[in-house]
């Protein structure tokens, strides 16, 4: 009998799999031996001999030496880098359930940047808590990454912004938008007001965002929103840019590491804002993940 290991190891209450989700797994895989683990460290042997795994993202190193593994389903919008490198060996699927929520959080951060809210210190009537705002209908928005989330962002921002442009390795972009490839990065940034990073963290994206030219192309008053991954940048380079350009603004839902430490460099930026990776956290998430699991994995029985 094949073994399916379900990793229910989250520490935070919201991210622990509800019984309805686990029940859905049992119903979808009636002929499998299902092992639900709640501690990664003490139950790691159930990862080492599983034929399949359902889990929030975890390092692919942990399955090394597993000669049984056929497929992995990750409850996340992105396939982590360590798994991308192994996609020739195993079938790895991920979830699109958080698409709308993450796209809306990106819009929230973009509007927060445009409205000029600085770090909010106390409950007081103080206009100094806000910079002079910009109006979205007079601004150009650039979206880096044309996946599920990037596309959804363009749909919800299209009515609001003057122009939407994509930086993408695809040769097209949604109707009503302009696209640039990575060789045209300088043109992409020309006259850009707001930028949303919605790209996968991959070997390719690391090459692009770690190159020195990248920060030289950025407009000095750019509003940059990051809903991709914290490690997409070298943090020191990011800090240096926003430190030198006080009229620019960095708003991110992702950091490296997570949780972000209290003495993290980005907290020193008066023009920085960090939300604690909550973009994909919404009230109906688990029921969406359950529906998606039944559809995506029905052929894996």
């Amino acid at each position, binding site marked *: 009998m094949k073994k399916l290991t379900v990793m229910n190891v989250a520490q935070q209450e919201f991210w622990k799999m509800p019984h309805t989700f686990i029940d859905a797994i049992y119903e979808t895989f009636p002929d499998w031996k299902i092992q639900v683990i709640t501690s990664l460290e003490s139950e790691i042997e159930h990862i080492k001999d599983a034929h399949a795994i359902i889990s929030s993202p975890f*390092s692919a*190193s*942990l399955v090394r030496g597993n000669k049984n593994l056929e497929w992995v389903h990750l409850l996340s919008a992105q396939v*982590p880098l360590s798994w991308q490198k192994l996609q020739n060996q195993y079938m790895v699927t991920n979830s699109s359930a958080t698409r709308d929520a993450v796209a809306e959080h990106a819009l929230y951060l973009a509007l927060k940047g445009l409205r000029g809210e600085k770090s909010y210190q106390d409950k007081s009537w103080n206009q100094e808590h806000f910079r002079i705002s910009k109006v979205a209908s007079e601004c150009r928005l650039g979206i880096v990454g044309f996946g599920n989330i990037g596309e959804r962002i363009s749909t919800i921002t299209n009515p609001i912004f003057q122009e939407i442009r994509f930086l993408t390795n695809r040769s097209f972009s949604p109707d009503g938008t302009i696209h640039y490839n990575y060789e045209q990065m300088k043109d992409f940034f020309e006259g850009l007001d707001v930028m949303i990073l919605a790209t996968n963290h991959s070997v390719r994206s690391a090459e692009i965002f770690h190159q020195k030219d990248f920060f030289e192309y950025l407009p000095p008053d750019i509003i940059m929103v990051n809903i991709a991954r914290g490690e997409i940048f070298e943090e020191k380079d990011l800090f240096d840019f926003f430190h030198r350009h006080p009229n620019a603004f960095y708003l991110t839902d992702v950091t*490296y590491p997570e949780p972000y430490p209290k003495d993290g460099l980005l907290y020193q930026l008066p023009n920085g804002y960090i939300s604690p990776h909550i973009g994909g956290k919404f009230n109906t998430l688990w029921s969406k993940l359950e529906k998606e699991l039944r559809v995506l994995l029905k052929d894996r029985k």
Partner: protein
Amino acid sequence: MSTLKKKLKEIIKTIDDLYLNKDILDVAEDTLLKELGIDSLGRINLFYGIIDHFGIEVDEKIASEWKTLGDVLDFIEDL
């Protein structure tokens, strides 16, 4: 040892999901791995990062014996 530390630091930069809370160039070899923020799962990540870098096959059980930075550096030195 400082050459090995620099080598190890280069390797760590390539490993996904491994974050150290101190720079290994600034700490002594007898620093415990857990003081660097490396737990048992981080050890596994580190182990595979090292053997992949050198393109070798070694039993993962060796990593379970690592307690200090020096243990990891000795492992690299012996390769």
